[in-house]
């Protein structure tokens, strides 16, 4: 039996809270200093267990093929950056992982995608449960027309959490992690639409974190942000990688270099090259990759 229903540790705590047993959320991770420009401590995440395996994945929008036989393994507690020119299929691949493509008619997928070894597209999979385990931050910020608090609490309320103390706690923790707490704590019950664009994007991150997913998919989370907000989000990714598996789409080579352990370069729906980030940026194996990362692409 496919076991996508099995929840992770944090989910267990939420479930425990739902079933009445007292449970505490994991403590907030201590934030590390800024890492902008700082050389990444080179981690070899391939030793980590594989979390997501993408095996010969092809995808069609109607008759138009957007992904071609993509093979990619994403390891636990790692940050993988997807880079490539616009329209090369990065977002498409990301959406395959939490099955957001299901919402689009006429999408056809071939190949195999697994999460912890379980087939994501098996017909017994409940996508709602899958998406609780695989959170997503979208390219464009999309806060709900609700209060800041309700935005962050949304995922929990969906799961039926009513315990006010637990909600308060998780909302605060999530906002802190998304580096929004200080700006939002006095206006938690005001509309989220009153926040600035950068704040809205961090709110969306907090919203995704609140349900404690195992995997976090981030589609250009900082594309609309100023350098300071971007730095905050990068810090956040840096913190989160100890606990979450993160896949991030970015157009910023610097960002990819700063935050990711591994980088995958896509071109026209084809995975051209994948490897350790520093290797991709300093010593790419393929000409297209080199052209792209050095900015000669075009």
């Amino acid at each position, binding site marked *: 039996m496919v076991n996508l229903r099995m929840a992770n540790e944090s989910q267990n705590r939420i479930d425990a809270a739902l079933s009445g047993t007292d449970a505490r959320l994991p403590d907030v991770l201590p934030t590390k200093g800024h890492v902008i420009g700082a050389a990444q401590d080179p981690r070899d995440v391939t030793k980590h267990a594989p979390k997501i395996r993408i095996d010969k994945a092809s995808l069609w929008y109607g008759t138009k093929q957007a992904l071609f036989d993509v093979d990619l393994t994403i390891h636990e507690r790692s940050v993988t950056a997807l880079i490539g020119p616009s329209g090369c299929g990065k977002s498409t691949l990301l959406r395959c992982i*939490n099955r*957001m493509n*299901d*919402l689009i*008619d006429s999408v056809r997928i071939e190949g195999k995608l697994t999460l912890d070894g379980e087939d994501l597209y098996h*017909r*017994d*999979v*409940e*996508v*709602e*449960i899958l*998406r*609780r385990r695989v*959170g*997503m931050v*979208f390219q*464009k910020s*999309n806060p*709900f*027309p*609700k209060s800041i608090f309700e935005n962050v609490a*949304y*995922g929990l*309320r*969906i*799961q039926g959490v009513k315990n006010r103390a637990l909600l308060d706690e998780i909302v605060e923790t999530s906002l802190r992690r998304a580096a929004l707490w200080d700006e939002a704590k006095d206006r938690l019950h005001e*509309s989220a*639409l009153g926040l600035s664009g950068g704040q809205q994007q961090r709110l*969306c991150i907090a*919203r*995704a974190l609140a*349900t404690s997913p195992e995997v976090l998919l981030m589609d250009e989370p900082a594309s609309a942000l100023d350098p300071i907000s971007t730095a905050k989000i990068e810090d956040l990714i840096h913190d989160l990688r100890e606990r979450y598996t993160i896949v991030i789409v970015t157009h910023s080579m610097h960002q990819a270099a700063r935050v990711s352990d591994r980088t995958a370069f896509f071109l026209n729906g084809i995975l051209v090259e994948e490897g350790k980030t520093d290797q991709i940026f300093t010593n790419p194996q393929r000409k297209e990759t080199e052209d792209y990362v050095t900015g000669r692409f075009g």
Partner: protein
Amino acid sequence: MTTIAPSPPRPEHHAFADTPQARARIKRLRRLDKIIAGSITAGGLLIILAVFGIFAFVFGEAVPLFLGSSAELVTTRSAVTDGTKALAVAIDEYGQRPVLLTDKGTLRILDLVGGNTDVEVALESLGTATITSGVVAHESPVFAAGTSDGRVLVAGIAFEPRFADGKRVGQDASVAWQFALPMVDGSTAIERIAVSSDGNRVAVVAAANGILKFATRRAKGIGTSPKFGDAAELVAGKTITAVALNGAADHAAIGFADGRFFLFDLDKADATLKENLDSGSASPVTALSWVFGGQTLLVGSADGRVSGWQGIRSGPSSSRTLTRVREFDAFDAPVADFMPSQRNKCILAAARDGALRVEHSTTQRIISDLGRTGSTFTAIGYAPKADGVVAIDASGTLHAWRVDADHADVSLAALFAPVLYESYDEPDYVWQSTGGSDDYEPKYSLVPLIFGSLKGVLYAMLFSAPLAILAALYVSQFASPKARSIVKPTVELMGALPSVVVGFLAGLWLSPAVDSDMGHTVGLLLALPLTIVLAAFVSSRLPQRVRNRVAFGREVLFLVPFLAAGIGLAWLASGPLEQTLFDGDLKGWLVRTFELAYDPRNCVIVGIALGFAVIPIVFTVAEDSMSNVPKSLRAASEALGASRWQTAWRLVLPAASPGIFAALMLGFGRAIGETMIVVMATGNTPILDPSPFNGMRTISASIATEIPEAPVDGSLYRVLFLSGSLLFVFAFLINTAAEVVGASLRKRYGKW
């Protein structure tokens, strides 16, 4: 040597270049902007103006209802001189030729308008006797005078308009016939007298000390021998202070000095005493009169009090007994006389101190206080069209007023408060604008109409709001795009169905069908939701594997077999079930068990029919507002693990709530203004009963059905316009509420 001057550099073409052409273009654009902005503003203002203009017109038509009545003294002139007293006065329908009965035994015919000189006609056969009392019938100009020798002299006046070239140029008045009735023996003077006549038959009551006599006679022609009745023994030992006869001459009222009065039934061969009543005052009863229609008896006392009495049943099976139900403002002096209007329930009342009032019997309002213009009025008359009043005071001066009391039947109390009408046993809200007879009192309570409108809307909204909103939710959030592209235009097409067709189907097909086949109807009504719930339950129990195999938006097909089975089963089973459980008569059982009044055209029918008008609007607007919730928000919700239902419930509904609210308000407005459907499907019974199993009458239906019959500028006409402006106000309130609530919802849920 010539040098060729270099040509000046051509100005570079740049959008912001400050060239004359650019400036001219910008100027042109600005002007265009201004013109367009100006015309749009003007158009909007015009529309607002037009709406207010319409309201002003509609309400303006109703305003005269509330302007009250006016009375204007138009003539004061000497009518009789030399100490002659006028005993009674009659006037023609143009208020032109008053005829006075004097205590000298003459009829004086005056002319208030034309130049005719006064004519004095002596009563025939007075002989040597003197006049001791005199009255005029209320319904027609027939005088009766009691004589010192125990006779009653009766004279009928004929008013005849005089025409020249097809135009009325004057009014002739003459004494048409006279006769004498010997009532008692020749030595007793008639002290109190009352007469009633339809112009042909004459009835007289004559009283003197220890004597009470009744007589009827045809005025002229064959069969003129009078019939007499006697009730002297019933009043033996009592002092008669007032007498009255009703218009049908089948009842007489006799008042006594001790404050009591009798009601006699004259229908039988002998007058029978029907009721012996206490006027509520110990002072003598000084004036008695029936109000137009003969249902309400006015009793005036020497202490100035005036009360109205009508037959009231104390229980459902008991017979009516005369009961004091109205109390009018008391006079300061003994009540002298009453003269009822022959058009409505107004009454002219005079007191000995010269006070003279027009009062409205049903609502006990003083319509006009004519004040104390002279000494005691000895004769008062009401113009046949109820548009004028004449009174002659003790000094022989005649006063004539023009009275404008066209809308005396209408007052705020009559429109909005319960009113005790004649032949009702308790105050009630009644809308019944026309009746079978001339003396019918129109009843204009708007409460049943407002209630009916709101009730119809309520049931329509109860039926259609959940259907329309859930349908909108389904179509916008769950249906496949293909289904949506079919369903939406179809429902919108439903709105194009002429409401007269919907009303026709509801009134002439659905309501009899439901009425005759209650069992199947109720069976289906129960089975439909049950099967849907059952199907939903079963589908939720299906393994994920099966559910995932159903394509997006196709889940609804799952319902089809369930619905088919449910409907079929309900149809087959409800017949036998009705037979065994309710003896084959569910309707009868319902009516008996819940003591319901069941009308075939009831709120369930109206709800369904009006729902047809309401659903398309509510559905369309709600569906639009739900599909307008951005896809990105729904994606965010689903990415957080929300199911489609959770997304719909927790995200889409709140985010679309301003639009949904607006949709409901639009539907409300549509329902309350809807006319054809309610005319045909409601039964139009103006009752105040919240039960869903009977009908109602709405404001719009009343307007539609009654305005063609309402005389222009009459009370009904104006009351209908008033109800129209009420509809207007409703619409205004609804829109304002929609705006206010919508704004606060938008503020709360914001825009995206």
